[in-house]
């Protein structure tokens, strides 16, 4: 152990590359006289200007291109743009399509969440520098996580053809209805995976987490009956209750002079998105078996301990398995897996719950169904301000007397906890480093 350092020293920490996050970013902060003075989360991701590429594209092409913003949550990008256009075109809802959309979403959640819990987060709490060294000590746990991740990929493949940039969805529904025998195979896999998923939650809930109580506003999609994913309205635990098209009146993006990226504010305040926010708002909408497991394991929501985000993620994995199983067990082949759409001019707004939290799209289309203006706001940019605030208070509470190394490690943990997806580069810039 390091001898305690002087908490009043000037600390300059620069974590050059954040590891075990999606994409690449870095953190830089300076403390003087026991106070954090400056703290930047930097995103390396160079701008890729997707919103611009979308201009002039036919609405049919949008899901394909939008997916490329992020290989980690392409379904969220595809689905949000698809639903934005469908609402504009007035496409009626269809129970089969709705159910299958939940399943493909669960696939993405499961894939992304298990990857995070298993390979990114667990090494932090079990004291390993990375997943590879953890795997040597915990081979069975790592394999179980990989099996569940594989199951997420299988769900994605069933409806989308492949796990990264799936090709199965279109405006109006799906290109293909999976044949019965493929669904039956999937049901078998889900049945087997149930127990894995329960153990996975128990394991995740039992990791030795620090306590990091934070003040924050949770924001998520809420649906009257279901755990909100692709349908519903935006709610917060501070009284927000609005439809998706009201997003622009409450949420605002801004760029700050000293910072590297766009930040988002909701009614002038920072807010928090992601699995924990969803659990905080929608726990009572979870299917019975999922709520029961949480109770059995003593998991309680709402919670303001940031590290419960990992547990929330694990519980959503179980949700994904249970609910997909329920949906696919009653599978019926539809006459057609999509509805016809007729493009029309106007503006379509939509939000869905990406693995990392709510994502917002807005498309302006002309009469031919071509995009004239696009906005896509990923969850990580919305969480950005929250992460920095979290770091600031958590760091002071953790104690600046810790060595630089320990501080650095702690910061990384805090950041990773959000599973920030830095690939969602629509609004991230890379700027010069400002050093003292």
């Amino acid at each position: 152990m390091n001898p305690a350092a002087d908490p009043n020293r000037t600390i300059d920490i620069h974590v050059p590359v954040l590891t075990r996050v999606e994409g690449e970013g870095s953190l830089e902060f300076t403390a003087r006289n026991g106070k954090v003075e400056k703290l930047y989360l930097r995103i390396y991701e160079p701008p890729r200007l997707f919103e611009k590429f979308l201009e002039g594209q036919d609405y049919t092409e949008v899901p394909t291109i939008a997916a490329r913003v992020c290989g980690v949550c392409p379904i969220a990008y595809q689905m949000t743009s698809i639903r934005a256009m469908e609402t504009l075109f007035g496409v009626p809802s269809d129970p089969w399509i709705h159910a299958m959309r939940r399943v493909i979403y669960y696939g993405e959640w499961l894939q992304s969440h298990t990857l995070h819990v298993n390979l990114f987060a667990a090494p932090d709490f079990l004291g390993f520098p990375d997943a590879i060294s953890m795997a040597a000590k915990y081979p069975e746990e790592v394999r179980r996580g990989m099996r569940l991740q594989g199951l997420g990929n299988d769900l994605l493949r069933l409806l989308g053809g492949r796990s990264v940039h799936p090709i199965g969805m279109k405006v109006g529904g799906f290109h293909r209805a999976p044949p019965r025998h493929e669904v039956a195979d999937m049901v078998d896999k889900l049945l087997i995976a149930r127990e894995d998923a329960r153990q996975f939650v128990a394991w995740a809930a039992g990791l030795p987490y620090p306590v990091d109580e934070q003040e924050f506003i949770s924001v998520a999609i809420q649906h009257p009956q279901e755990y909100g994913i692709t349908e519903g309205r935006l709610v917060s635990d501070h009284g927000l209750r609005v439809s998706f098209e009201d997003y622009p009146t409450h949420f605002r993006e801004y760029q700050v002079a000293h910072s590297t990226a766009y930040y988002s504010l909701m009614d002038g305040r920072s807010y928090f998105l992601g699995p924990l926010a969803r659990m905080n708002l929608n726990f009572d909408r979870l299917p019975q078996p999922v709520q029961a497991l949480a109770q059995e394991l003593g998991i309680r929501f709402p919670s303001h301990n940031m590290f419960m985000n990992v547990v929330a993620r694990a519980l959503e994995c179980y949700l994904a398995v249970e609910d997909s199983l329920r949906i696919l067990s009653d599978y019926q082949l539809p006459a057609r897996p999509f509805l016809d759409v007729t493009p029309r001019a106007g503006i379509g707004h939509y939000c869905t719950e990406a693995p990392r939290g709510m994502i917002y799209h807005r498309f302006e289309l002309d009469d031919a169904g071509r995009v004239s203006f696009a906005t896509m706001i990923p969850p990580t940019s919305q969480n950005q301000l929250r992460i920095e605030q979290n770091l600031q208070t958590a760091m002071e509470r953790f104690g600046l007397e810790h060595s630089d190394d320990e501080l650095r490690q702690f910061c990384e943990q805090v950041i990773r906890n959000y599973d920030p997806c830095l690939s969602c580069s629509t609004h991230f810039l890379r700027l010069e480093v400002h050093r003292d």
Partner: protein
Amino acid sequence: MEHKPKIAIHKFASCSGCQLAFVNMGEDLIELLQLVDLVHMAEVGSMAPEDQQVDIAFIEGSITTPHDVDRLLKIRANSACLITIGACATSGGIQALRNNADSGEWMRSVYAKPEFIQSLSTSAAIANHVKVDFELWGCPVSSRQMFTAIRTLLYGVPPLSLREKVCQECKRRGNVCILVTQDAPCMGPVTRTGCGALCPSFGAPCYTCYGPAEGVNTASFGQRLIGLGLHPDQVARRFASINNAAPAFSEATRLFAGEEGKS
């Protein structure tokens, strides 16, 4: 095998999807890690510096900043074999669309304070900057492509690279051609094989994510798309998609966007 080969996966401007394809190998990944040392892959927390000597460096993403160029040169100098993975690294990716646009103008319209952005005006393929030993096309590459490449290299043999058209695999799978039965603007006849004819197997038209095949006849095919009812601009956009900067496709884009005469 005397020494365990070292492999690294580096990321430039990309969506991380190709790396994810690697992580998505599932239990094969565990098998693979017994055969090789993964010394650099920020996503999973392995972080050897760029100047560590490796046997195989996989590169994801395109080159968009001067800093990228420095990093890439360092990686190249220290890798016995350098392989690009995915459309971004191999052809510049979807973001290469800005190469033809006034990117200053684009930046201004997307970002309030573009003066902070340090960015080359283009999104360039890795081969535009350094020598590339092999290219794995696809957006994203599949896990299979990656481990087949690694497996073959472990045998001391360059990976095989098939460049036939998607149609061939589509027919092997027994799919009905949706271009012929539904007038769907499927790009299979100009797109390189590798995906297993995924889209047409789902009844969806191919959109070129594996890049141009060998010996493509884009002029004739573009005319055919016009015959199916597409406007020449739509034809140009079919080519100017995921691999818009691949020469065969950027030429086709110019041809149908009618810019041939202007330049």
